[in-house]
């Protein structure tokens, strides 16, 4: 009790439709590496956000260094020595490393006795000393845009150390690093502990937790499942605790009736915008009436697979065939017409034009065809309206002003309904669903699942990319597990348990 750096007491945090943290109590001791393990949506980030002052708990208290915090904010957190290394770096690209580190607390020196100018010479020295001490060697005068991801992360860490933080929260720090860089980072984390810092490591990678952490709290659906000593717990055990649960929703899934192969992906390779290969030779096929689910932790290449099939990302190598027609290098429009419907992950950025009315968005993939346009290129507004009215009715899209409502004014769930309505109505042989239920409440999730199953009944080939194991277990006929750009395993859904999938998702090999 005495040496508790952070003490969380009966904390509950609710958001509309979900309980993100349900009566959680835990203590983090001085000088330990404390891991927080859980799936996506388990409530890790919310819990960390409360420790860092971004959210306030609905119930319960947070104590930091024996002091109960009230009126808490990130600024307050920083003052109390809590530092967070964010998953997405918060750095100014064209500033030097030293400038980034001092940003917000720039040392000001009176030049010529009166001119208050920022003086970085001493800070640079200080930063160099700090970086030597923690083996975080960086050149303080290099610009952020010139340095790689691993160095940027070091800068984030140095930023916290420079502010004399002694509780450091790492939010999924290894998600974007190479294996070598991960090794090095874990080394740094140990070094920080040797120097008396308290570390909170948020992760869902079992192996690195096993390697570096002292204790580990496992969250599942907002509840604290257990706190274990890492030394005496196997990764298998941790995976079980993390994934194991009763199925949330019952779905009535009829027996499959597979048809012809609709989509055939062979040896697909895709690079991201930084020219790093993120899909490394993936092959799979989907038959009509089959739901093929790609399971995996976010950022392992699954989003890029969807983008490559739909034509939004160029394919570096391999072939994509749709109903025996090779579409590998077709433009987007031609693929859509050839028979692809796509429910994208980021519905506000890709799926909808938020400033436009419902009518335009529902017709976004049809506006150029009869009856929406004449062959001469003139629009027929009455066709937009009647089509929108029909879809609003069929798919129960709720808005304040009917089909004329601006899309931005709809709730997230109704926006998603719009996209699903539009895509299903395309009546294509292949439908790609990426994270179709992200952010939806239970009722909407069930509704969406029913829709996906109905399309399966109609004999559509369905590619489902999801980070939710529940969803995959409930819907998939066949499951492919992707890890680091490679499809580790493709099996009929009945041949895999959630535990096994969970293990593959973490990159744990079959026979450990």
């Amino acid at each position, binding site marked *: 009790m005495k040496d508790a750096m952070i003490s969380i007491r009966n904390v509950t945090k609710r958001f509309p439709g979900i309980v993100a943290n349900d009566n959680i109590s835990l203590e983090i001791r001085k000088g330990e590496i404390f891991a927080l393990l859980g799936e996506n949506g388990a409530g890790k980030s919310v819990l960390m956000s409360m420790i860092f002052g971004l959210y306030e708990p609905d119930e319960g208290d947070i104590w930091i260094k024996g002091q109960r915090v009230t009126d808490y904010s990130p600024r307050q957190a920083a003052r109390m020595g809590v530092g967070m290394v964010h998953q997405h770096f918060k750095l100014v690209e064209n500033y030097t490393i030293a400038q980034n580190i001092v940003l917000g607390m720039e040392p000001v020196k009176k030049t010529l006795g009166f001119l208050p100018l920022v003086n970085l010479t001493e800070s640079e020295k200080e930063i160099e000393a700090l970086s030597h001490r923690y083996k975080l060697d960086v050149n303080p005068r290099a610009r952020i845009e010139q340095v790689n991801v691993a160095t940027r992360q070091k800068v984030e860490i140095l930023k916290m150390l420079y502010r004399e933080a002694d509780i450091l929260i790492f939010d999924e720090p290894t998600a974007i690093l190479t294996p070598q860089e991960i090794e090095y980072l874990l080394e740094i984390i140990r070094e920080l502990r040797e120097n008396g810092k308290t570390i909170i490591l948020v992760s869902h990678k079992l192996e690195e937790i096993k390697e570096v952490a002292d204790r580990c709290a496992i969250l599942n659906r907002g509840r604290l499942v257990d706190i274990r000593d890492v030394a005496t717990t196997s990764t298998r055990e941790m995976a079980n605790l993390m994934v194991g649960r009763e199925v949330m929703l019952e779905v009535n899934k009829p027996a499959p009736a597979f048809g012809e192969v609709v989509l055939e992906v062979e040896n697909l390779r895709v690079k991201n915008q930084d020219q790093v290969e993120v899909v490394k030779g993936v092959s799979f096929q989907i038959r009509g009436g089959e739901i093929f689910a790609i399971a995996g932790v976010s950022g392992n290449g699954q989003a890029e697979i969807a983008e490559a099939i739909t034509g939004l990302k160029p394919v570096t190598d391999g072939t994509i065939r749709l109903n025996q027609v090779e579409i590998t290098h077709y433009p*987007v429009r031609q693929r859509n017409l050839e028979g692809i419907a796509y429910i994208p992950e980021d519905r506000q950025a890709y799926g909808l034009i938020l400033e436009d009315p419902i009518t335009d968005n529902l017709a976004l993939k049809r506006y150029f065809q009869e009856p929406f346009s004449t062959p001469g290129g003139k629009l027929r507004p009455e066709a937009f309206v009647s089509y929108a009215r029909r879809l609003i009715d069929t798919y129960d899209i709720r808005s304040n002003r009917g089909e004329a409502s601006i899309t931005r004014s709809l709730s997230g769930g109704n926006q998603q309904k719009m996209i699903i309505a539009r895509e299903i109505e395309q009546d294509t042989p292949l439908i790609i669903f990426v994270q179709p239920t992200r952010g939806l409440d239970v009722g909407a999730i069930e509704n969406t699942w029913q829709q996906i199953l109905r399309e399966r009944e109609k004999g559509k080939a369905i590619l489902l990319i999801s980070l939710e194991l529940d969803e995959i277990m409930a819907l998939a006929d066949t499951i492919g597990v992707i890890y680091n750009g490679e499809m580790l395993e493709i099996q009929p859904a009945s041949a895999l348990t959630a535990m096994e999938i969970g293990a593959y998702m973490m990159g744990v090999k079959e026979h450990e």
Partner: protein
Amino acid sequence: MNKKNPLTAFLGNEKWQWLSIPVFAVVLSIVAGSVVMLLMGKNPLAAYVGILQGAGLVPKPNYAGGTGMLTDFTSFLDALAPMIFAALAVTVGFRAGLFNIGIAGQMLLAGFFATLLVGYSDLPWYLAKPLVLIIAVTAGALAAGLVGYLKHRFNISEVVSTIMMNYIIAYVTSYYIKSYFVNPVSRQSEYIQPAASLTLKNLRVGGVRIDVSIGIVLAVAAALLVYYLLYKTRLGFEIKAVGANKQAAEYAGIHIGKTTVTAMMISGGLAGLAGATFYLGHYASMQPGVLAGLGYDAIATSLLGNNHPLGVLLASVLITTLDKGATYMSSKVGVVREISGVITSLILLFSATGTYIRYRVNRQRQEQKEQQEHREPPEEQSASPAPGEVSAQQVEKSREANLKEGGDEA
């Protein structure tokens, strides 16, 4: 802050915002202009009447021989034509998410080629006039199309490339005008042949001298055509989709590059027509090395018109009225012409606040609504930045929203 504000209620009606907000902005600016006049000890009402008189919209107490209210009015229409074209050019660009600041340069290039190729020729009017239009459209469209291509192919900001091109065009044309067809007295280019002119100058109607502008007819037609293009055609749908959300447009299968270049060419073509009616109509001559201020005023005009072709028509009338009436107003009320410039600028300044007013009004309505709905999370994002802009606030909001959706994405 959260009490029901009648002004918010009035301006908040989304159906009428296209009209109510610009009108509100204009009223604000007239009030601000009055304050300036009052501070100078002048009668603001007299000043505003003076502006209308100068533009030929209200009769002056007396006229010089051979002139009348019709003279002022036709001259006003003649000046109105290039403003409408130029503001429409800005509008088409904005709608495609492109900020065409190169209107002045595109006008100059179009005017230059039309003057060079047709202005001094002996072609009869029925060949010369259409040729002027065709050359002007082509020159403007090509200049702007190049900008669109650079934007798409090399991701060069159209703001930078159009500004740079403005200067290149200004200096290159200046060199040729000064070298080959400058009038040594006026130091402008020689006047063009009347056959090539888009304004029929010095006609006499009932003993009063008038200028008949062909351009104004074309400009009004162009406004209707742009309206038709943007709201009634497939191409317009695509242009607006690309302008509103490039990613979603690409997702829907719209060819971003083609649409960007096409929109830019339409914008440039309209700028070319502005150039033709300006240099081969209203002035019939070119001033070497000078970019028309109208090319920049058109940006404010388009904003004041809410980037809607019909709104632009009204806004052009307002801005041109101020511009044409300023001289007469200053002599009548007895202030230096610069003061009328101040008034014009104030109106332009307030007109640009339309977006801000809309943002404030909609946010306030949003807050009222949220209060009623017992602190539901803000699913609507009331901040509506101009197309192409990313507001930090919005990014922050969507980030929060993501967190709230309970997904701690890895």
